[in-house]
């Protein structure tokens, strides 16, 4: 009984952790004011931090991708030694000059918990996973920053990659009001984690066959294993994200300590079919608005 409660509790924790990370990943690098923490632009030993809370509206990673709304934290920190944290990205500036920014990056990529309906359709979860890589930004114009991020990691037992390229421009609208415009593309290769699925994905369209030897499926007596063999073995393994996006960010400084930050991002997906994490959702919009305290 106790162990059952424990199991449920752990499961719940996992789910809530996943959804928090899922949510916070959308917020990565959204605060324009913390967007360009150029190296050593702080006094030695000082730090600059924003901690905030806001409301995020985004599509879920379910089939159809219905828009959902949630409360989302927003954390941006940078230290004088060049280390910075932007939600689920931890990096370090190694740039010798202000002409360009370069450094290593550790990033947590959001997961996606498949619903029962989706699992029945043959899709597994996509576990959140860490990726490592680096970033390189430079400014061809004083008001234009071109940035790139390349990350690799492991997910569902396979190698995953993530590439993002973005152009960003910032305008002062009026005293205490700033507007950031961004456009970019993301090319990410990931996989559904069928081992984590409570339903065998091969059930979706397979025919019952008997095979000998170890494996997943129903254990019969001895070494006989009864399993469902799919006629399409490789289906539903890829959970890629390939998109282009346009973003608009509005920052309103209420004081040196309080800031209201809002952004709207419109995304167009290239893959919406079986290879995509975003099944059937070609275009979607993400909206965030929140209050942050700088300390």
């Amino acid at each position, binding site marked *: 009984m106790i162990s059952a409660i424990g199991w449920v509790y752990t499961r719940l924790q996992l789910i809530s952790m996943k959804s928090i990370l899922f949510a916070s990943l959308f917020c990565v690098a959204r605060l324009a004011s913390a967007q360009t923490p150029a190296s050593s632009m702080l006094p030695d030993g000082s730090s600059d931090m924003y901690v905030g809370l806001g409301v995020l509206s985004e599509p879920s990673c379910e089939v159809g991708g219905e828009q959902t709304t949630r409360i989302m934290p927003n954390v941006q920190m940078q230290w004088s030694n060049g280390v910075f944290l932007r939600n689920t990205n931890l990096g370090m500036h190694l740039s010798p000059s202000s002409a360009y920014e370069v450094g290593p990056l550790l990033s947590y990529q959001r997961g996606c918990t498949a619903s029962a309906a989706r699992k029945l359709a043959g899709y597994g979860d996509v576990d959140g996973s860490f990726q490592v890589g680096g970033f390189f930004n430079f400014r061809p114009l004083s008001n234009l920053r071109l940035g790139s991020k390349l990350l690799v990691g492991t997910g569902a037992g396979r190698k995953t990659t993530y590439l993002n390229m973005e152009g960003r421009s910032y305008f002062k609208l009026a005293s205490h009001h700033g507007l950031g415009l961004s456009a970019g593309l993301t090319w990410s290769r990931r996989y559904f984690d069928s081992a984590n699925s409570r339903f065998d994905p091969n059930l979706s369209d397979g025919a019952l066959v008997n095979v000998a030897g170890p494996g997943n499926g129903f254990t019969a007596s001895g070494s006989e294993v009864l399993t469902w063999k799919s006629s399409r073995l490789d289906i539903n393994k890829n959970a890629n994200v390939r998109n282009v996006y346009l973003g608009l960010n509005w920052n309103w400084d*209420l004081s040196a300590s309080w800031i209201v930050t809002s952004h709207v991002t419109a995304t167009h997906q290239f893959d919406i079919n079986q290879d995509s994490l975003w099944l059937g959702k070609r275009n979607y919009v993400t909206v965030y608005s929140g209050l942050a305290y*700088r300390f």
Partner: protein
Amino acid sequence: MITKYASIFVLLQFASVLAFAQTNSATPVTKQAAAQASESQTDTEWISYRNAYRLMIQFEKYGKPKHLIQNHFQIVSKNGSPLPDNLQLNLVSKSMRLNLPLDAAGRASFPLLKSAYDENAELVLNQTAGQVNFQSRISIIVRSDGVYEIADLRLACEQAMAYLKNAGDTRISARSCVGVRFSYAKNLQQAGIKFRGVDMQMHALALQENSAFPDESNKAYKTANLRFADAAEKGQLLAQQAPIAIAPLFE
């Protein structure tokens, strides 16, 4: 569905307004604690010290030659009109209130203070809410003896241009140094600014009403331009009166 988002958004904005009201009512208290001057809080303008610091530290970190130029924190009016008299700039935080004297061109020396950074201080103007911009301003250092070698002025102009190009100022990307501008108060009768060539002949430079810096649009100063094309390399510029500012000219 839309109603749901709308209501959440409205709620959030309401929370923001509440926070805004709170900060506004809280700020004067802390300021008054550190302040001795009584200023009307309604018309004050401010900028985050951290944001200004990020702007101003670039000059300190700049590694190429810069010994003939200087960097100031400058207040400029948005519509080009002159800044009001008795305009005061203060650095205000929990534990300090520091007056930063403004010169006639609206410039102040910017203190790079770790304590002000850590306390997230504000730079506060006692008036002109919403009518001014803050910027960093590069100019050529004024000499106390008033004697400027033309070669030094040319070098100073080159240093200023190299710095501004490095900082990403695209307005000057295809330009080169053509001269310098000395600026004086508008009511000045005789600036006594002369050019002395290698033949020791003195030529007075003509004064005209113009802005202290070529990217400003006012006519608030008496200025004298020296163009390098008109001056021998080994000549000197003699300024009896110290100018308010010496600006590099790019074309």
